[in-house]
């Protein structure tokens, strides 16, 4: 086979481009995200994961709070609910409980899930209700102009930490696990294909599945912390500061130290909340 320029090229597997439009609301585009924002990459990974999991669009409900990340439901063609800052998980609990047949996905920011909504995060995980929670962790409140968030590293600049942040950050995965979530994973916008698979696995899990997704806010966190741009942030934060859980045992300790683990970090079978509830109701009904 020859190429148009005459050279010989290898026979390539022809891949049909993924039809994002099937899952988007094109009339709601363009989106509000800044150039280089990681949220768009996460959105694409989420759509491919939903597709690969073979979910029926009409059975999917995407719910968010408020924030740049929480704008996601506006762009996607599922049942969607855009709620209040911090409360997405409570709304989602209501939706899932009312209709356990729905596949409920919560799209939330690190501020949304872990600051103003931190209480709901803990209790959602504790109940192990069947929700997939995608936390867009960009270490800032992007939407309101770059205040520090509960995942901002110590020493980082934010509009509210002009001399460097002194508050220790949360590890969302540790918190989810400790609170009782039965599936806990981490991904990054840099490792796109891995992220897509991780989200798919989360979607296929029964119980509360949390995926902490590290992505970049070049506009605020990036500029204030002297990053040259989004690609440098992706390389230095998402690539260099994480290591796959599959490789961790093979690497010398110095290559692992101070890095966050990627991949599925915790997966157990634990009774799911809606099912528990139904079982109880049936038992009591039978006893009557």
């Amino acid at each position, binding site marked *: 086979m020859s190429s148009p320029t005459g050279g010989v090229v290898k026979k390539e597997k022809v891949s049909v481009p993924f039809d994002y439009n099937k899952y988007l609301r094109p009339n709601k585009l363009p989106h509000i995200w800044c150039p280089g924002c990681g949220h768009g990459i996460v959105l694409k990974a989420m759509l491919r994961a939903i597709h690969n999991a073979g979910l029926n669009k009409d059975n999917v409900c995407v719910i968010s709070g*408020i924030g740049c990340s929480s704008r996601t439901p506006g762009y996607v063609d599922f049942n969607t609910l*855009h709620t*209040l800052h911090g409360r997405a998980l409570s709304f989602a609990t209501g939706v899932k409980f009312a209709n356990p047949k729905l596949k409920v996905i919560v799209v939330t920011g690190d501020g949304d899930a872990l600051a*103003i909504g*931190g209480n709901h995060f803990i209790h959602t995980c504790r109940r192990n209700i069947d929700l997939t929670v995608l936390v867009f962790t960009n270490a800032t409140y992007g939407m309101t102009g770059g205040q520090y968030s509960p995942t901002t590293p110590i020493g980082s600049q934010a*509009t*509210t930490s*002009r001399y460097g942040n002194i508050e220790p950050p949360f590890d969302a995965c540790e918190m989810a696990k400790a609170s009782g979530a039965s599936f806990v994973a981490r991904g990054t916008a840099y490792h796109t294909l891995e992220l897509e698979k991780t989200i798919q696995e989360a979607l296929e899990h029964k119980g509360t599945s949390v995926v902490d997704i590290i992505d970049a806010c070049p506009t605020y966190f990036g500029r204030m912390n002297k990053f040259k741009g989004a690609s440098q942030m992706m390389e230095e934060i998402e690539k260099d500061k994480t290591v796959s859980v599959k490789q961790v045992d093979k690497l010398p300790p110095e290559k692992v130290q101070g890095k966050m683990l990627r991949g599925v970090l915790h997966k157990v079978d634990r009774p799911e909340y809606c099912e528990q509830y139904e079982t109880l109701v049936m038992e009591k009904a039978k006893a009557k």
Partner: protein
Amino acid sequence: MAITGTKGATGLTGNTAIAYAMKQINPDVAPVYPITPSTGIVEDFSSYVADGAVDTELITVESEHSAMSACIGACAAGARVMTATSSQGLALMWEMLYIASGMRLPIVLTDVNRALSAPINIHCDHSDSMGARDSGWIQIYSETVQEAYDNLFMAVRIAEHEHVLLPAMVCMDGFITSHAIENINLIGDDSVREFVGEYKPAHSLLDTGNPITYGAMTLPDTYITFKHQQSKAMAAAKDVAVEISAEFGRKFGRNYGLFDAYRLADAEAAIVILNSAAGTSKVAVDELRKQGKKVGLLRPRLFRPFPFEEITGALKHLKAVAVLDRVDSMNAFGGPLFNEVRSALYDLEKRPKVMSRIYGLGGRDYKVADAVGAFEEVLKAAATGRVETLQKYITL
């Protein structure tokens, strides 16, 4: 951008002016949490803190629920406390708003008026502060950047007055006032310091020599007594507001009262309206006056406590009034300002006809033509003695 040393006339946005006023007041504690369109206030103020230009402890909490809780704690401990918020932020403070007023804590908050969700909207209307109108907070509304700046100083004095001791909220319109630049006159730091004075709390948790308790359980034998005292303090806030604004006028040459009356004395028909939309309406008044139409305007400044006697006095000679609310009090009969005004007029032997108009929700433009349209309806009611449509939405 936070401004530093200035004197005289300076072009400032509402947010920058409020942040600057806060810098001049130099409160002891400011618990803050960001929300559009008030974020600029705390962002600028945090620069003053970072630069050491104020002595304030800035507490960056994780939600407005915590922000107002921290305000309450700090104020009960004897600190002068200020914060700012908007919309959902004020809504999330709800539970604590009542705690602040019930504990008689003179916290001062700037509310940059923004619509409440759902559907989500970041633009101006008054649903946030109007929702809090019965929470026991003094509410002062501001037409312009200058007025918002001036109101903040007066709010501190009114709130902390020994006959009052209640929290106060200064309201200005989101984006329209908060983000628009206006040339305003700044007061010198020394004059501000002298006007607001040093805060000497009447009671303080840190005054260990005189131990006190706040918020203790009260049963039916005492709860109503507390509320009665609170209600009397709120009523007293009106006279105090008159007194303080007169003092402000004497010192700084800008005279504000309980309300602003524009070409009202010889008017037959008038609009009653809050905040920035009054400016637009005044343009309509001038245009209609040129055509010989006897129209005027009343803009309440103090909405809580509601100065019903004074407002009745100012409106009683009119034949018809339209009260324009930038909020709907969904299942009441007309907007909240309409209800107050109409009820205040009830005791008159001969009352003006009153109609309710809801305008500008979620930042919908209110233009001179809209004000003219409203005036035309009031003029018609004045001429016929009949109100055709008692309540309706305009600017749709």
